[in-house]
């Protein structure tokens, strides 16, 4: 059986730097930071008191109150991004067989806000369980894909992938495979996360994973800078519509790009620390290149995982040099997390959108907040520091790695008609 070709026919996003896919892209190329003091809760006693929140978010702008309050904020973000992508791809047009449209979403954590609220309410009570009947359906991570299918009546394959910060790259690859294997014609995929809560911020602080640069939040996410001190927590969602190529052509869909390959691997090293040698990261990029049937020299741009942690950034760069050799110097490399912060399970999805937009606009979004070179990193590499760079991008790779040692890479190619 030959594998079917898969293209991207719709995009959606709600992010800390823009609340639609086009606004998100504008934020990226302007080099805008989404970081600011936390407004969701009183963070006065927390080590980190800032994050990349979705700005001025009010669920009433998107949902009827009755509908909105039955969804955790991570599911609200999922529906907002998916609705934009579905409309962009015109998936509710007549003639689309909704039995052949599925949803595979990604979330690293799920409904943390709901879990926390219900546990606090129980702890404040007299021991009588008064858990809300919507608590479990709000909290479970698969409520995102479930709600998207219910809203649009998509009856194809439906589930959520969870692999921490690689979750939505894994959902993209799963969706890709279901279409390639002829188990669906169209897949709504992407990821969402909303962990800017007391337990989310406190938990990541305990891991010593987050930046504590409270005096300059906008400069805190600084991948590849010598003074980087951890990631900045972000929230939001992005969605991609994947579609079988002939199916897309037959209905005259707008084709943004072709998804040509995906790779997965595990570090098998430590539950939170990256393998300093980057062996799992080398393997995942090699796996993705092989799946795509391309050579390292074919790649123009890598949107890195690059979370701004001291260890992780260096290991990934080392791995890129191992895989790409001399061609590493010809690549554009950037970490858009310098602007959006780290959206955890939604990172793969928003960064896939960034790769596709870079192809569309022949413009590579920057790694902002570069102040001091890190002597550990090869100065001949082009990290696209501080300003977007014009470049024809034919092939782009997006890397994501998650706690647990999960590594995932996806590769997109420009489709020339």
């Amino acid at each position, binding site marked *: 059986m030959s594998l079917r070709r898969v293209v991207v026919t719709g995009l959606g996003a709600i992010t800390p730097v823009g609340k639609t896919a086009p606004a998100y892209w504008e934020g990226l190329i302007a080099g805008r930071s989404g970081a600011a003091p936390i407004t969701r809760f009183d963070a006065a006693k927390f080590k980190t008191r800032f994050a990349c929140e979705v700005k001025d978010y009010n669920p009433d702008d998107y949902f*009827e109150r*009755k509908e909105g309050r039955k969804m955790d904020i991570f599911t609200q973000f999922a529906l907002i991004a998916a609705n934009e992508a579905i409309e962009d791809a015109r998936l509710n047009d007549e003639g689309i067989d909704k039995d052949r449209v599925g949803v595979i979403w990604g979330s690293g954590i799920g409904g943390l806000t709901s879990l926390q609220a219900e546990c606090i309410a129980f702890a404040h009570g007299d021991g009588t369980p008064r858990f809300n009947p919507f608590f479990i359906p709000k909290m479970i991570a698969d409520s995102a894909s479930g709600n998207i299918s219910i809203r649009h009546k998509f009856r194809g394959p439906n589930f959520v992938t969870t692999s921490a910060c690689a979750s939505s790259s894994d959902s993209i690859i799963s969706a890709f495979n279901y279409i390639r294997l002829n188990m669906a014609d169209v897949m709504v995929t992407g990821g969402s996360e909303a962990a800017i809560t007391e337990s989310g911020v406190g938990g990541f602080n305990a891991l010593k994973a987050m930046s504590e640069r409270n005096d300059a939040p906008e400069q805190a996410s600084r991948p590849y800078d010598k003074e980087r001190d951890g990631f900045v927590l972000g929230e939001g969602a992005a969605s991609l519509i994947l579609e079988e190529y002939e199916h897309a052509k037959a209905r005259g869909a707008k084709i943004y790009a072709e998804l040509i390959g995906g790779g997965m691997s595990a570090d098998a090293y430590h539950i939170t620390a990256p393998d300093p040698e980057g062996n799992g990261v080398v393997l995942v990029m090699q796996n993705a290149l092989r799946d795509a049937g391309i050579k390292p020299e074919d790649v123009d741009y890598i949107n890195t995982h690059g979370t701004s942690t001291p260890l992780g950034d260096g290991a990934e760069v080392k791995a890129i040099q191992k895989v790409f050799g001399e061609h590493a110097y010809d690549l554009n490399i950037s970490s858009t997390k310098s602007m959006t912060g780290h959206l955890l399970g939604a990172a793969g999805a928003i960064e896939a959108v960034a790769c596709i937009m870079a192809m569309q606009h022949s413009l590579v979004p920057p790694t902002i907040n570069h102040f001091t070179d890190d002597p550990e990193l090869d100065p001949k590499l082009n990290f696209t520091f501080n300003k977007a760079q014009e470049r024809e991008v034919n092939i782009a790779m997006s890397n994501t790695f998650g706690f647990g040692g999960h590594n995932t890479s996806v590769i997109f190619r420009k489709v020339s008609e």
Partner: protein
Amino acid sequence: MSEIAEKVKAIIIDKLGVEASEVTPEASFTNDLGADSLDTVELIMEFEKEFNVSIPDDQAENIGTVGQAISYLEEHAK
């Protein structure tokens, strides 16, 4: 209208997102006000919290309309 009836109506309007004019004594939560089985469970829990009562499951099953909720609570609320 009693104070209890006013509070019951307010809870129903809030939880089910319906208009005050729809919340008549005869209105059924599921047939008229768009509640599903989980909405109904949540309503009963809100009544328990607001009126400081415990409504056993076998009695909760008999509370299907606005009027039934009001008369149950007028009888049992502390």
